[in-house]
């Protein structure tokens, strides 16, 4: 089945996107097969025959038009059904933003990715911020919020296994969120033509189990918070922390 071409699906909203996609492919696939089947059947059945004469069916009366209009009404109905099914999924992925366990700032540039963690104090713009290039390390099972900006041209954050894609525009901060269900390493690809090395603008999303993540934090994060006395082991940043 063509859907087996879909890559692994590891985000919490991924299955919803896949289910919309599946619904559409089934609905539209059926319509497609019926239409092509009809076309093929007509082409075979109504080949020219010696002495034969075609029927005269101009399709001007409503009775005749019904043959086309009824299938069209069915198409219209299915269209609405698809729209209704898709709306909550779009809502979930793009319009809602669940409270994040971790907020990371992402800066895209020709041709790479820079990730800034708020550091132990949970605030951006303090000396204990942690900057990582290429590698985005996050815990599994927790909501991650990205605040994305671009240094130069338009880029796009795309991880196929997350089913997430979001363009990043210079001069603006664009949010995105995801929660990964399975630890592992996934590739981050730029998905908007951004220059001659666009194809090589790869990053790595490293998803760790919460325990491994705590370990990573304790090994890599700056030790002491410059500001508030928040525990260094806490990776949490409050929403207000993002304003730094």
């Amino acid at each position, binding site marked *: 089945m063509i859907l087996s071409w879909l*890559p692994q699906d590891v985000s919490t909203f991924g299955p919803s996107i896949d289910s*919309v996609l599946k619904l559409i492919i089934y609905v539209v696939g059926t319509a497609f097969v019926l239409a092509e089947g009809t076309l093929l059947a007509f082409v075979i059945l109504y080949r020219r025959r010696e002495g034969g004469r075609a029927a*005269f*069916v101009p399709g001007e009366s409503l009775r005749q038009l019904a043959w*086309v209009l009824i299938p069209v009404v069915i198409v219209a109905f299915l269209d609405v059904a698809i729209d209704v099914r898709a709306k909550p999924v*779009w809502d979930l992925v793009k319009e809602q933003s669940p409270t994040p366990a971790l907020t990371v700032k992402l800066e895209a540039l020709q041709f790479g990715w820079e990730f800034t963690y708020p550091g132990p104090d949970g605030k951006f713009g303090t000396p204990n911020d942690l900057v990582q290039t290429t590698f985005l390390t996050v815990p599994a099972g927790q909501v991650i919020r990205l605040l994305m900006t671009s240094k130069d041209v338009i880029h796009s954050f795309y991880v196929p296994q997350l089913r997430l*894609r979001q363009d990043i525009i210079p001069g603006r901060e664009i949010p995105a969120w995801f929660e990964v269900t399975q630890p592992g390493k996934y590739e981050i690809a730029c*998905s908007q033509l951004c220059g*001659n090395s666009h194809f090589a603008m790869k990053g790595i999303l490293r998803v760790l189990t919460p325990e491994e993540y705590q370990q990573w934090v304790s090994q890599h994060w700056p030790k002491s918070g410059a500001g508030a006395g928040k525990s260094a082991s806490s990776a949490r940043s409050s929403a207000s922390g993002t304003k730094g």
Partner: protein
Amino acid sequence: MAETKPQSAPSTDAHEKMGFWRQYIFSVDHKVIGKQYLFLGLFMGYVGVFLSYVFRWQLAWPGTAVPIWGKVTAPQYYELVTMHGTIMVFFVAMPVLLGAFGNFLIPLMVGARDMAFPRLNMASFWTILVGSVLLLISFFVPGGASHAGWTNYVPLSDASKYLPGNYWGGNLWLIALAIDFASVLMGGINFLTTAIAMRAPGMTIWRMPLFVWQELVASVLFMLSVGPLIAGVVMLLFDRMVGTGFFLPEKGADPLLWQHLFWFFGHPEVYVVAMPGLGIVQEILPVFARKSIFGYRMIVWAVIVAGILSFTVWAHHMFVSGMNPVLAEPFSATTIAISIPFAVMLFAMIATLWRGQITFSTPMLFALGALANFLLGGVTGIPLGTNASDIYLHDTYFVIAHFHNTLVPTAVIAGFGGIYYWFPKMFGRMMNETLGKLHFVFTWVGFNMVFVPLFLIGLGGGQRRIYMSSVYTFYKPLQPLHVIATIGLLVIIVGQIPFLLNFFLSMFRGAKAPANPWHANTLEWATDSPPPHENFHTIPTVVRGPYEYSVPGMEQDWAPQAAAVDAGAAQG
């Protein structure tokens, strides 16, 4: 009776005395201009195919030397892709479907002696020729042709620091595009004026062939959608050459503005291409099925509704662009709604075949092939127009496969069908059927071999515009599909040999064509093949609609739109 006998020597045969230059090169005759467009479009088309050959080779066998070209570098790859898209859309699809067929057929089909403004018509051809030459020259300027993608998104395309060395290529791209737009606008003025004001007696609007209808709607769509983009192109040229900052975020501008301007034009633009292509199919189907088109008026209304709706959907190209996500919902709804008029058209075309008497001449094969693939292009638009699934599919090869399945069936497959169908009228000779069928099989099979795998690559997550897919591990399982696709392209290319042989040999050696070789109804068949300079010896009087085939009680299975000229053979 369909053969209109020459009545008397036309009084205005000034053209007989015209020299070669005025008759064939600087001609104001819409038929000659139409052929000029056709040659230009074919030439540019094969340039576009050659470019796709080079980058498709790179996609299938990355890093290997491409025969005839050599190794492809990354900047070259983006140059090839950008120019392929630009050439195919603006310098192939539009010149062939509007320039060639529109010019050649509209006056003949409505029963006029020429376009309303013959000199403007000539100017429009020479304008697009200049644009084409500039675009081709841009390959040879320092830094090569534009690398910014056919969508030319800012700020990538705005400041040459982002695409080092690509200064003149980018400028020439913008200039060539502006010239192309000017040319098509001139053409549109002629199309609309001619079809509105120069119809033969009896040619009411509800007797106009569907092809004319679709050309008209396409012209209106173009006229009303391109203006803002022309303004945008001028502004972007100022940015690049003068140093203004209309699109530069560091000067406070919004980069999404260009995308809005581009797609406000871009979506109607794909209908500007699709509609005349479907119009060709709708002319061919009835003739070779000997049946009336099903639901003529319904199709006309569907075309008009689709045209209107096409102005309301542009932001479906921008769901994940960073625009306000709330906007994605209305645009998703309008996009899906537009499938309704298209379903009407496509179902009506299928219904036309019901209880017909179908002959599989070459034009019919191309028409059926176009219809079959346009259906695929249509249905695959739904997952892209649905915002939720587009998050995943946007900018993947699924998109590439989808829009090639709308543009290639209309611009290329229907376009070839049109060439085979109207060749006798254009050149007065018949084309060879065997070579034609060979051409069809290679082109159609090859085309599907290219683009069916690309749907799967897209579903597998493979993005478009990727020079070296081996960078990503998720691309690994998809790579064999790229190989199949490229072999498909080679099949297409081989299939062009019978076409080119057929086209040029038939032009000089083909059997002489009768006035109405297909026993068709529309007015272009009511005059000589090729038509005389003034098209009709006497302007025909139209007595019926264009698709009255196999009308009960009639001896023949066709009923020409024109009243018989010879009193003896009178029938209408």
